């Protein structure tokens, strides 16, 4: 399928919905993207995300700068981009292209959420088996998906004006909508491992999840033992026989008061002048590509806890504790498909044994403790 042919590809007869409003608006926004692409810089990138090939088609440089760097480690060649199983995403912003978003058909008010908006921007009547629509009013983002044609659209009013964290985990709404009918689930979790297997690190902010993941990035030139699939967000294929963890993003975030624990990373920080209001952002792909891993078999789920004890200890925990750690934060951070998400997370915590990771004070010991533990499983 070419860049342009996606606009005209006819839907198959399968799964056709009777209400045509979602399709009409989707096509109107797709036409607007075509106008933006006709008059702006365009580019294409192909990434393998959670085992699926995504073709990212950009109109305007700002959106690519916003969304691609965190995915750069997943870039692949275009082979297979025309396959029926590949997924194409059209991304553009109005500020860079001067093409406005088509008038939205649902009840919209600039200063409040109308009755057509769910509590997180999901548009009532525009989310069904085939289509998905999320409109974030605060940040002026619109995400649309047509599962039947395997096309997504991501629009920003101004890509350059998005909050800084979008650069660290871009396209989460789109990937979440895409994954709904698959056995893949996005997860608020860090992940470390080797090709032989690894662990998810699940916990809300402050439990030591990111610090544990970053402690696996070596200080010097020695090869890493455990490698990092993500410090905050990952994807997992929930297959009881072979659960698999996938890396999503290569940009790590650190609280400013935690940078001192990782002095070798200080020079990697891309936003050193804004640490009073932003977390430190570090591109591991640029500075420590060997520390990253694209995927690994899931061998254990670890629930980190900061203890202040000298040594790191790993002890059995209940599956419910993993669900409790993962579900509220994942479900409320990801928009839409929440019942699906809870069901998938419940299946996930039954896929692998669950342990509490009581973190010791010596950060150099943590990777070794996890690595030894995983080898013994």
């Amino acid at each position, binding site marked *: 399928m070419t860049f342009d042919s996606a606009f005209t590809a006819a839907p198959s007869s399968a799964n056709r919905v009777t209400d045509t409003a979602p399709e009409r608006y989707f096509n109107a926004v797709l036409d607007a993207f075509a106008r933006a692409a006709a008059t702006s810089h365009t580019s294409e990138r192909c990434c393998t995300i959670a085992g699926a090939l995504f073709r990212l088609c950009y109109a305007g440089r700002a959106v690519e700068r916003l969304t691609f760097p965190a995915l750069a480690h997943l870039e692949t060649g275009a082979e297979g981009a025309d396959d029926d199983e590949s997924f194409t995403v059209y991304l553009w*912003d*109005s*500020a860079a292209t*001067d*093409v*406005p*978003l088509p*008038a*939205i*058909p*649902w*009840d*919209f*008010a*600039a*200063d*409040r*959420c109308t009755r057509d*908006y769910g*509590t*997180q*921007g999901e548009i009532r009547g525009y989310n069904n088996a085939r289509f998905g629509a999320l*409109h*974030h*009013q*605060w*940040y*002026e983002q*619109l995400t649309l998906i047509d599962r039947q044609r395997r096309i997504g659209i991501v*629009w*920003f*009013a*101004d890509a350059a*004006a998005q909050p800084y964290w979008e650069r660290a985990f871009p396209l989460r709404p789109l990937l979440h909508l895409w994954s709904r009918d698959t056995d893949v689930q996005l997860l608020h979790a860090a992940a470390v491992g080797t090709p032989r297997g690894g662990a998810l690190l699940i916990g809300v902010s402050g439990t030591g999840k990111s610090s544990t993941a970053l402690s696996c990035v070596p200080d010097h030139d020695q090869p890493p033992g455990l490698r990092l699939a993500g410090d905050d967000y990952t994807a997992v294929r929930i297959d009881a026989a072979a659960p698999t963890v996938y890396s999503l993003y290569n940009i790590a975030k650190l609280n400013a008061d935690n940078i001192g624990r990782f002095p070798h990373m200080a020079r990697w920080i891309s936003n050193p002048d804004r640490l009073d209001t932003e977390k430190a952002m570090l591109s591991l792909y640029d500075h420590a590509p060997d520390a990253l891993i694209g995927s690994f078999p899931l061998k254990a789920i670890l629930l980190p806890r900061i203890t202040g004890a000298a040594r790191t200890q790993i002890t059995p925990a*209940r*599956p*419910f504790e993993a*669900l*409790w750690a993962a*579900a*509220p*934060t994942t*479900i*409320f*951070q990801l928009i839409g498909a*929440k*019942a699906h998400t*809870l*069901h998938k*997370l*419940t299946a996930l*915590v*039954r896929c692998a044994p669950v342990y509490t990771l009581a973190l010791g004070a010596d950060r150099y010991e943590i990777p070794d403790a996890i690595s030894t533990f995983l080898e013994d499983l």
Partner: protein
Amino acid sequence: MNVNDQYRINAPNVVSETIDDEVIIIHLEAGIYYSMQGTGATIWNLIERGATVRQIAESLLTSYDGDLMTISFAIAPFITQLIDQGLIVAMTGGTPLTLALTPPAVRPPFVTPMIDIYKDMQNLLMIDPIHEVGDIGWPQQNPAS
């Protein structure tokens, strides 16, 4: 509350899962989540299956070591709390549940059902956007809609 009353989970606003006698319940609209264990989890699972208040009491009396008065007096306020939290709603015309009452080998002591409530995720809900409206690209409502 009548002994023949039935309730249902307030789906789709409320979702829940049970693992090993522990329940997580999430109220998606309110941004509040809950946990229950033991007798609370038992009652929740019975409500999910469509049990009447009477059947809930009979089941608890079979499964736990407690007297009917204590159990009955504990059920009503618990169910009222579930209603007040918007987690369940009254159901009319529900199919009666056929409940097989088999006492376990060991009946644990009856403990008053409790629900733990957590509200720390509410800040992730987009209740009312506060922003500057830009000139370029900010969507406008279609006047024809």
